[in-house]
């Protein structure tokens, strides 16, 4: 690529500095002011209801923490079970979280569904302002 000479640069400057000016259309100011007035007349955005949501958030946070602790504990158990030399003849021991069988899984599922239902209902009540 050829380097720019001073003459080239001056020429580009000269061409690009002479760009024609356009004028806004006659109704531009009115149109902008209409939009500004509409903006001014519209109600301010509804702030997030922190006061109402805070208890729910705290409960959700605690629940998450509990689940996290359980998961970490389960992983630790799994690690302990996997540490002894593996025998090809022995099936791996499942972690205690799987000990309950189908009955336990059904209870956990029901509990999860219940928590989901309660949180949906709660959020709907918060959104409709009935709380």
């Amino acid at each position, binding site marked *: *690529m*050829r*380097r*720019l000479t001073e003459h*080239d*640069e001056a*020429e*580009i*400057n*000269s*061409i*690009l*500095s*002479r*760009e024609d*000016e*356009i*004028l*806004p*259309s006659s109704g*531009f*100011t009115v*149109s*902008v*002011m209409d*939009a*500004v*007035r509409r*903006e*001014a007349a519209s109600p301010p955005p509804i702030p997030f209801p922190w006061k109402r949501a805070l208890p729910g958030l705290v409960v959700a946070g605690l629940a998450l923490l509990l689940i996290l602790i359980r998961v970490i504990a389960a992983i630790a158990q799994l690690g302990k079970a996997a540490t002894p030399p593996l025998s090809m003849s022995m099936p791996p021991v499942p972690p205690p979280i799987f000990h309950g069988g189908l009955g336990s899984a059904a209870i956990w599922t029901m509990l999860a569904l219940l928590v989901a239902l309660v949180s949906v209902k709660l959020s709907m009540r918060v959104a409709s302002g009935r709380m």
Partner: protein
Amino acid sequence: MNASASDDQTDVERVLAGNVSAFEGIVRRWQTPLVNLAYRFCHDRGRSEDMAQEAFLRAYRGLAQWRKEAVFSTWLFALATNLYRSELRRIPARTVSLEDIAEPPDTRPADRHQEDTAYDRDLAVRRAVFALPAKYREALTLFYFHDMDVATASRSLGLPEGTVKARLFRGREILRSKLPQLLTVPHLKEA
């Protein structure tokens, strides 16, 4: 762009005190520069007015955020530039490839006036600027819009002056390499 800074400040204070109509003074003072700046970004008259209107609306919404240590126009141009750049990233303007920029034919009609030749050349150079990669195009657009003031252009772009200078240099070099014939055409008379 010779509007009085004190007029802007007075109008801003009145708007912030609840007088929405005072914003009209700001619109009247800055509508032509803001529409022209938008036009240089998109080369579409209708779209440039839409973009300028959105810039004014954003300025109205964010008026309280204007720190008075900067001149109002600097703040307004930075806000508008930011909006125009993101608008064009969202919906790019119709551009032609730099390779497709038509260079002036070598065999021009003998009776053609020198002004026509110069006009064609200017148009081709502007189209070539429009076809540059965004970072060079934006630097060149702002630089020439602000009367070749690098400091103001860099404030509008929110970039260090050194970066803007480097982009200007590179942008002009690309232009020069893509349009060698244009810039060697006998020099036009200054308008």
